[in-house]
């Protein structure tokens, strides 16, 4: 058995050597005719030529390294190693370029097979059906709305790789409609107190006419409000038999009354007509209903009942009736509250 085992490797080695020789001969006979063909020509893609040249040089280098190895030396001693490394790098760069050119090369090969003629030029037109695939490959992680590989969430998109891209929206001012409501309400009030509405109310309203030497009916609403303020104040003073001090605001109002303003009626036309001059579509119905409601409120909820007889005066029944009186009582109440609070605090602090 030892003899056979000892023989086998030798016989194996001999067989292998023979194979090697035969293979080398075969390669030589095959490579001879190719030598003429492989000449650098102006036609064709130089890219492919470079590739082939690189590969061939690489193979020869590889043979040299193997030869060195067989000779017993380390393969790193071979001088072909540097060129081998260079060629390796080049080939690694060539590979992706080739995949990119693959389509073009295939097209060219098909063109050579097909019959020459005018149709050739047309066959080079782009294939629209291939467009979608190309988009996906090129854009990848961009936030474009392509439904093949990307799902669109509300505003944001999730790319193929699963990264969420938020939508690029500029911040916009939020309007909750309260400002518009307030403006509308104020416009209604000013329209209701406009000259037109007041004149209509005087003529067709149910309330009795106001006449008196101390009642001033002026053209400007501001002057009227100031007169009303002072009238309220006087009523309060006479009711409570006392005098209220003049504040800075009161003095200012007094000076405003003395100021004589020359107003051009044509300039205030819009205010007098309750905003109807500027806004043609304004509905006067709202103004009229508002005026009506206000009138009813002034006269009291039971104003329509004629059997009701007020035996007790209004102010006695319902507390302060004018704005001034209301403000005064409120101020007094708050003052009492703060004083009471202070005293309580002082007492508790004192006892401690």
């Amino acid at each position, binding site marked *: 058995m030892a003899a056979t085992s000892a023989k086998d490797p030798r016989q194996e080695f001999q067989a292998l050597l023979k194979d090697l020789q035969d293979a080398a001969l075969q390669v030589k006979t095959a490579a001879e005719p190719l030598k003429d063909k492989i000449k650098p020509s102006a036609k064709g893609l130089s890219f492919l030529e470079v590739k082939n040249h690189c590969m061939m040089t690489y193979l020869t280098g590889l043979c040299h390294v193997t030869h060195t190895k067989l000779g017993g030396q380390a393969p790193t001693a071979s001088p072909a190693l540097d060129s081998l490394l260079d060629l390796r790098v080049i080939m690694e760069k060539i590979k992706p370029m080739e995949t990119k050119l693959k389509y073009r090369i295939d097209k060219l090969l098909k063109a050579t097979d097909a019959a020459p003629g005018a149709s050739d030029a047309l066959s080079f037109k782009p294939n629209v059906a291939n467009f979608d695939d190309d988009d996906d490959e090129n854009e990848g992680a961009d936030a474009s709305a392509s439904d093949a590989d990307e799902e669109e969430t509300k505003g944001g998109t999730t790319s193929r790789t699963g990264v969420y891209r938020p939508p690029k929206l500029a911040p916009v001012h939020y309007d909750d409609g309260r400002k518009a409501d307030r403006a509308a309400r104020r416009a209604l009030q000013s329209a209701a107190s406009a000259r037109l509405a007041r004149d209509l109310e005087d003529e067709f309203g149910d309330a009795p006419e106001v006449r008196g030497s101390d009642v001033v009916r002026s053209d400007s609403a501001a002057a009227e409000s100031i007169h009303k303020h002072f009238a309220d104040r006087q009523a309060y*003073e*006479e009711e409570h*038999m006392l*005098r209220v001090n003049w504040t800075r605001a009161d003095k200012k109002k007094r000076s405003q009354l003395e100021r004589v303003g020359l107003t051009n009626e044509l300039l205030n036309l819009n205010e007098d007509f309750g905003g109807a001059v500027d806004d043609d579509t304004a509905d006067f119905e709202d103004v009229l209903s508002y005026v009506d409601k206000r009138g009813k409120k002034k006269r009291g909820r039971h104003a329509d009942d004629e059997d009701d007889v007020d035996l007790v005066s209004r102010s006695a029944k319902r507390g302060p009736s004018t704005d001034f009186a209301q403000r005064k009582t409120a101020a007094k109440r708050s003052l009492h509250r703060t004083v009471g609070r202070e005293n309580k605090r002082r007492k508790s602090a004192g006892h401690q």
Partner: protein
Amino acid sequence: MAIDTSSATIRTRKFLTNRLLQRKQMVVDVLHANLANLAKETIREKLAKMYKVNKEVVVVFGFRTAFGGGKSTGFALIYDSVDSLKKFEPKHRLVRLGLAEESKSGRKQRKERKNRAKKVRGTKKAAIMGKK
């Protein structure tokens, strides 16, 4: 340059008999066209004549001339007697009428005295307050 008081008119409004304070209270309008404001004494006299009472029980205060002039408005109280006047009128008006004297001690002293009296209960207060 005597002021012609006879051309001025006095009217009263909002008349109310206040039994609790033993007086009658009203709002007084004085019409004095082209004249200056009437003096309080003159108004007292006129009111006493109108209501047929003694001038001593009439108190007037708070006169303000209306905007534009010619008319002033104030308040008047007519007491049942001088005793009720002395009992119910506030100090400063009694001083104006000459029926009381204002205290010579300053405001600060008065307050301090009051605070000292707060610490004491009952008749002992009179001892502290009486010092003035």
